[in-house]
């Protein structure tokens, strides 16, 4: 039967993707702006490397690679939830204003609060205040969106409110930027470019918790998500509590995307594009496959972006956001232009 045949091949694809993930994770540890011996890197992981090697691997490359996996998976799953909930191929964490909310939090902190409280850039307090501000911003937007979602009959109005909110927020941020000094402005602009390498192990633990909790929630929602493929009316007619499902999906997506954005800055493009790439790879719309699939694909793509952003062996680093967009957009164009465009896959 073809049904069991395609299930087998989905298993095979998962196996290949996981092997690729291990490979890329290792590559990400081996390659970097500073050249290290392969032996030194591997020994450093187990605490037997040279002092220089251990610092670079344990303090920089390992946390960065782990963050890439977490952030990639979090953004991708978040995007998948949004696309199914809104039944819109262009939905993603960004359109809900979650990213811009986080941006507003950071901008407020950077451009107004930190000069007032004289928190010096680079201090531990400074790092945490940025993260808390981003979280608060993303959370505030989330609360607004959920209040709207609880009242509006039509889910499309929620999408529109999200888009309007995002525009309004970016105007406020522009205003703040206009009145800030050059140093602050540059710090903010750099934050918007995304950075996977700024996290302490403590922060990675928090991010792990957020992404794991979000993924677990998403897994519980797999059945109603599959019903949603047939529309909200059908879902309700087979017993899905639509109000509760909407709120849970929005909360899950916001917690994941909000946390990733708080710790790593707004990671462009992943949330929208990875779900499409996953549908293409597995040729399925079953969320039991798509959910773990999107997590792995998101992690893979961000690992590749991270490897490329360090421009191996060059001593230079470019912002990861530029890389995700530059490698991602051609991929999406290729998919759209291909025989079976995104519209057909969705």
């Amino acid at each position, binding site marked *: 039967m073809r049904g069991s045949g395609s299930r087998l091949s989905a298993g095979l694809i998962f196996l290949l993707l996981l092997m690729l993930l291990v490979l890329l994770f290792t590559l990400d540890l081996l390659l970097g702006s500073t050249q290290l011996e392969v032996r030194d890197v591997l020994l450093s992981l187990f605490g037997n490397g040279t002092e220089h090697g251990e610092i670079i691997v344990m303090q920089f490359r390992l946390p960065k690679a782990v963050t890439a996996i977490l952030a990639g998976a979090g953004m991708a799953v978040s995007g998948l939830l949004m696309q199914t909930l809104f039944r819109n191929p262009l939905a993603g964490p960004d359109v809900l204003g979650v990213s811009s909310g986080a941006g507003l939090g950071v901008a407020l902190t950077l451009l107004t609060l930190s000069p007032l409280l004289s928190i010096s850039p680079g201090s531990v307090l400074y790092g945490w205040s940025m993260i808390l501000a981003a979280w608060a911003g993303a959370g505030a937007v989330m609360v607004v969106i959920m209040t709207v979602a609880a009242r509006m009959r039509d889910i499309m109005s929620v999408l529109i409110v999200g888009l309007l909110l995002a525009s309004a927020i970016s105007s406020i941020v522009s205003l703040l930027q206009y009145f800030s000094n050059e140093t602050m402005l540059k710090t903010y602009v750099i934050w918007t470019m995304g950075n996977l390498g700024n996290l302490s192990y403590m922060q990675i633990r928090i991010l792990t918790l957020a992404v794991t909790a979000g993924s677990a929630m998403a897994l519980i929602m797999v059945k109603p998500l599959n019903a949603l*493929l047939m529309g909200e009316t059908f879902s309700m*007619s*087979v017993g899905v509590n639509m109000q509760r499902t909407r709120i849970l999906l929005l909360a899950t997506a916001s917690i994941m995307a909000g946390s990733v954005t708080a710790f790593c800055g707004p990671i462009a493009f992943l949330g929208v594009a990875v779900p499409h790439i996953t549908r293409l790879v597995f040729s399925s719309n079953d969320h039991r496959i798509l959910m773990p699939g999107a997590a792995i694909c998101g992690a893979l793509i961000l690992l590749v972006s991270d490897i490329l952003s360090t421009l191996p062996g060059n001593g230079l680093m470019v912002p990861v956001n530029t890389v995700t967009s530059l490698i991602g957009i051609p991929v999406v164009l290729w998919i759209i232009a291909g025989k079976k465009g995104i519209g*057909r896959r969705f």
Partner: protein
Amino acid sequence: MRTGTIIAETSDLTIGYKTSGRTNPLLEHLTLTARRGELVALIGRNGTGKSTLLRTMVALQQPLSGIVRISGNDIFTSDRSLLPKVVSFASTEPFAVHNIKVREVVALGRFPYTNWIGTLTSADELSVNEALQATGLLPLSDRNIDAISDGEKQRVLIARSLAQDTELLIMDEPTAYLDLPSRYSIVSLLKKLTREKGKCVIYSTHDLDTAINEADKIWLMSEKGVAEGAPEDLMLSRTIARAFESPLLSFSQTSGSFSFIRKSRGSVTLDATGSLRKLTERALHRCGYKTGQDSAIRIIAVETDGRMEWTLLFENRTECYNSIYELVGHLPVED
């Protein structure tokens, strides 16, 4: 056919909307029944509230007052989680996705029975297969929903409802946008399910013709309420005629069909037989002429060796034509 037990029943039901504290009733005091093994067609003009009634009957919408009972239980007071096991609903809502197989869509009908992640047991697989079989979709079961016709898509929705294994199937306009053969095939499929599987099927439609010919019962909705009965009952009482007739449309009580009311242009005496007569007469009616005896206009239609010829006699002229199209183009206007 013996009368089955009542599956769906509304009593003193008022449907409508509540907007900002004010109630906005569409229809009041609806008391209707549908029985096991019955095909019920809900007809009525646009905007009378057909969808609202159907949505209220599956608890997607609160009634303003009154009771809906399905399989004996009041759906608004009994355990809501049991409802998907007694009634299925297929709306006109478009699919959110294209990339999904026929079998996967039908399998979603098992939603009320599967575990938290939607795993199909062998019993579920069996139900899905039976539903595909009954709707004739087995050969298409591995096709993408995008790669089948609109009529087949409707079959998929029916199969999905069947897989849900409910006594009552409610469908909102299952024949909308379909061509004539597909409409008949969908309605005859629904009828087959009532006969062979004992289902009770309630469907709304604008296709009066099929409804009158196939349904066991009609729920006829108008601004005044919903009248129910066998199609012929509603024809006899002229309820259908009253609901749909307009200055331009008249309803024939015995044939159950509508015809346009046209301005009379005169009368014609027709000499012809068989289908040649019937079709020529039809064309004359379409152009506003009556057929009668001893009229000033006379038409003789004959068929010789497979060739047809119409001769038009009027005043002193005699003209011959080779088609009805040419004939009606030259008919004189009688003052």
